[in-house]
């Protein structure tokens, strides 16, 4: 060692955070960024919130980096940190810089930003495979949450072929206030009772279907291939699918098979910025025999999947209608007074299909409109008539015609929103009640209703005497 020739440059600058390697790095079992952040906080003996909000800010400032938005980082169990969003990419790059571990970049799906959209991508709650967590403990390491388990489409563990369980604490004692003081969040352990490996979960273990295992395996291969996928141009996939449609029976048939509207498939193929969701891409693979990771790289080599593997989406049903039956139904409705929507319901078709029979549709529509107007006018007349009778009866009894008195007299509740109540209120105003204000609904009843009220008021003025009229003042 030559101290006199000690390096003039600072040869080694240590990173701000401990250089933890994400567990399962390089494999399909890599931990999620949320899990990694919790583990990093655990390594620094800090609570996750303090670590992210204060520690990250301090470390970024010390290294001359801009502050990143961290408010709500934990929302949905950190669901914004693991998808294809800009925040996921920014945070993973920041933590990679502050820990010196490039592997952190592979703890999110940000590398698939150009291949798929964030819709239906990340599940908002933690789901775990308790067997995997137990194996972590048996290996002598802390259990951790896999990125695979946070993908919404994945509902099973491909290794143990069991369904994932929601991370819900089954330890009732763990919810008591006294034990809450001992909590610290760590991925793979219960946030309520602290049970490592979620051994507190009571839900039974359910076997996964072949389809579920297949989906998990497909997504697992994508996660493992993330380093390669990040370098791949997403347009290569679209070009390959476009060529595939050209060789087979076209994009329309493809859209039928995968259960996506043909306009969406067309838009996806034509527009570079348009992205399908991951479940949609999985349906394409299930239907056409592709491997998801290869599809994303533009390789459409087909594989014969087991028969249990099928797309999740319902295939679109294209019905062929007998229009003679529709015409007869419309004519029948005109005669009997049925509504357009009830005809559509009975035939199991859309209203727009009925409208294709323009003349009959218009006749039915006009007839129903006239009927509705007649019913409306009748109900207004009945309401005014009832109010008129109640007002006359109350005034002859020497009672003020209020809604309460009307309720008592008729034995049914009079509410201000009812037409008869509006009529009664309007009658009182017409007959000299100066302390009343118009009800809001009175402005919506229309001039015909008010004309009826005026006529009723005129009749009542002839029937009541001066003493009874004083009740309205």
């Amino acid at each position, binding site marked *: *060692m*030559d*101290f*006199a*020739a*000690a*390096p*003039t*440059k*600072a*040869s*080694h*600058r*240590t*990173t*701000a*955070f*401990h*250089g*933890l390697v994400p567990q399962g790095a390089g494999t399909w079992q890599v931990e999620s960024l949320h899990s990694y952040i919790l583990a990093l906080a*655990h*390594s*620094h*003996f*800090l*609570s996750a919130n*303090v*670590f992210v909000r*204060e*520690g990250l800010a*301090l*470390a970024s400032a010390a290294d001359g980096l801009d502050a990143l938005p961290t408010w709500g980082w934990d929302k949905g169990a950190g669901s914004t940190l693991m998808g294809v969003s800009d925040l996921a990419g920014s945070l993973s790059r920041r933590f990679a810089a502050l*820990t*010196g*571990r490039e592997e952190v970049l592979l703890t999110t799906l940000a590398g698939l930003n150009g291949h798929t959209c964030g819709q239906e991508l990340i599940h908002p709650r933690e789901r775990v495979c308790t067997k995997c967590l137990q194996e972590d403990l048996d290996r002598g390491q802390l259990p951790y949450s896999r990125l695979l388990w946070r993908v919404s489409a994945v509902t099973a563990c491909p290794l143990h072929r069991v369904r994932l369980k929601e991370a819900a604490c089954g330890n009732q004692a763990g919810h008591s206030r006294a034990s809450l*003081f*001992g*909590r*610290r969040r*760590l991925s793979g*352990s*219960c946030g309520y*009772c*602290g*049970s*490592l*490996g979620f*051994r507190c979960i009571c839900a039974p273990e359910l076997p996964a279907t072949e389809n579920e295992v297949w989906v998990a395996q497909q997504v697992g291969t994508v996660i493992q291939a993330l380093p390669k996928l990040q370098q791949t141009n997403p347009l290569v996939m679209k070009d390959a699918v476009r060529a595939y449609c050209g060789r087979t029976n076209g994009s329309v048939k493809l859209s039928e098979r995968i259960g996506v509207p043909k306009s969406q498939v067309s838009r996806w193929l034509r527009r570079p910025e348009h992205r399908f969701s991951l479940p949609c891409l999985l349906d394409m693979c299930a239907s056409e025999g592709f491997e998801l990771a290869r599809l994303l790289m533009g390789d459409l080599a087909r594989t014969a999947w087991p028969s249990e593997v099928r797309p999740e989406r319902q295939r679109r049903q294209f019905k062929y209608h007998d229009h003679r039956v529709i015409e007869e139904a419309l004519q029948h409705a005109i005669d009997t007074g049925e509504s357009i929507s009830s005809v559509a319901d009975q035939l199991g078709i859309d209203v727009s299909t009925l409208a294709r029979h323009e003349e009959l549709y218009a006749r039915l529509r006009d007839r129903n409109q006239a009927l509705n107007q007649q019913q409306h006018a009748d109900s207004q007349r009945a309401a005014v008539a009832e109010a008129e009778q109640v007002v006359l009866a109350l005034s002859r009894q020497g009672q003020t015609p209020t809604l309460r008195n009307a309720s008592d007299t008729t034995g049914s509740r009079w509410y201000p929103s009812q037409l008869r109540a509006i009529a009664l209120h309007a009658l009182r105003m017409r007959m000299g009640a100066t302390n009343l204000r118009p009800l809001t609904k009175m402005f919506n009843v229309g001039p015909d209703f008010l004309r009826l009220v005026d006529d009723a008021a005129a009749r009542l003025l002839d029937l009541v005497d001066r003493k009874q009229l004083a009740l309205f003042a």
Partner: protein
Amino acid sequence: MESKELLTHATDPMPQCVDTHLRGLSREKVLELDSATRLRWFFLLQTAHPELGRVTSALEELLMPDNETKIVSIIGMTGIGKTTLAHSLQRVLNAKFSAQAHASEMPVVYVPSPANGEKSLSWTGLYTRILEAGRETLIDKKRAQTVTGGALQVIRGGRATLTELRNFIEHMLKIRNVQVLIIDEVLHLLRFESYSAVMDTLKSLADAHSTKLVLIGSYDIAERMIEYGQVARRGEIIHYRRYLPGVINAAKLTDDQEAFRQQVAKFQAEWPCASVPNLLNIWGDLMKHSLGSIGMLKTHLLRLSSLQMTSRGEQLTLRHIHHFLKPPKAAAKILQETLSGEALLRGACYGDSPLSDEECVKMLDLLQAA
């Protein structure tokens, strides 16, 4: 700027990037700068000399991994350059280990332990300084966690206890892969309590991750280091010696005198003023008043250069000569401590063999015989 201000400015800690830049400048470039910067550059100047080479070789041998040495004490007289040596050691070890170390690792951690003004050792303060030196963040908010009955529990409320702080340090040493933990001015830790308890604690701390301890101090700690059993078993003392002035015979200089004289020549060659005094003409006086210590020599020359910079035309005056050397009583006190320290360390240091020279030669011959 007054001479005192110049000296303060030159010796205060500066941003590392500034010092790094200054170290790389040649004398010609430095002479164009202002006086404060020139003095800072002279302060940062480090020259190799035989004693420094001997100490560094010894450190290199003792700090090799996988040997039994756990504690290395570097003891020398006041002002000889131990802290400067420690900083250089940190840079050199970092450069050596960084080739294999990951960016998150910290091969060397340097911890100063200044006097805290209290009547007893503050373990919390020491542990906190170690954590800060290890680049730990938010130390006051750390709390330890335990696993009890398969459940993760955290200790909440208040501040971390000593046990927790210790756990944090052990974890930091392990996760940062610290190879060497340097504690400077270790006297401030040992003078309060039972020093063996302090040493035991420090040693077990380092044992957590097979980290080697390097303790730096003046002769005040020599006796404690000699008597501490663990140092005897698993440690070594490196004596950072001064060059013995002796009687100067111009015709035949001793090795120490020649080495010191060459150092004076080096400092003269790097003088931070345009007008260079002929230091070689007074090298003997400089050696005598510096007690043979290169560190003290540099202290004297720093003062001389700062006085020169404050004069008109940067010319030396008689007043400067009156003021640049240490007062005689101070020098006498340092000499007294040095002599007793040297006597104490004789036969106790790395390289002090129980065999005579002849016995060593004989043993070597036997070892090399077929």
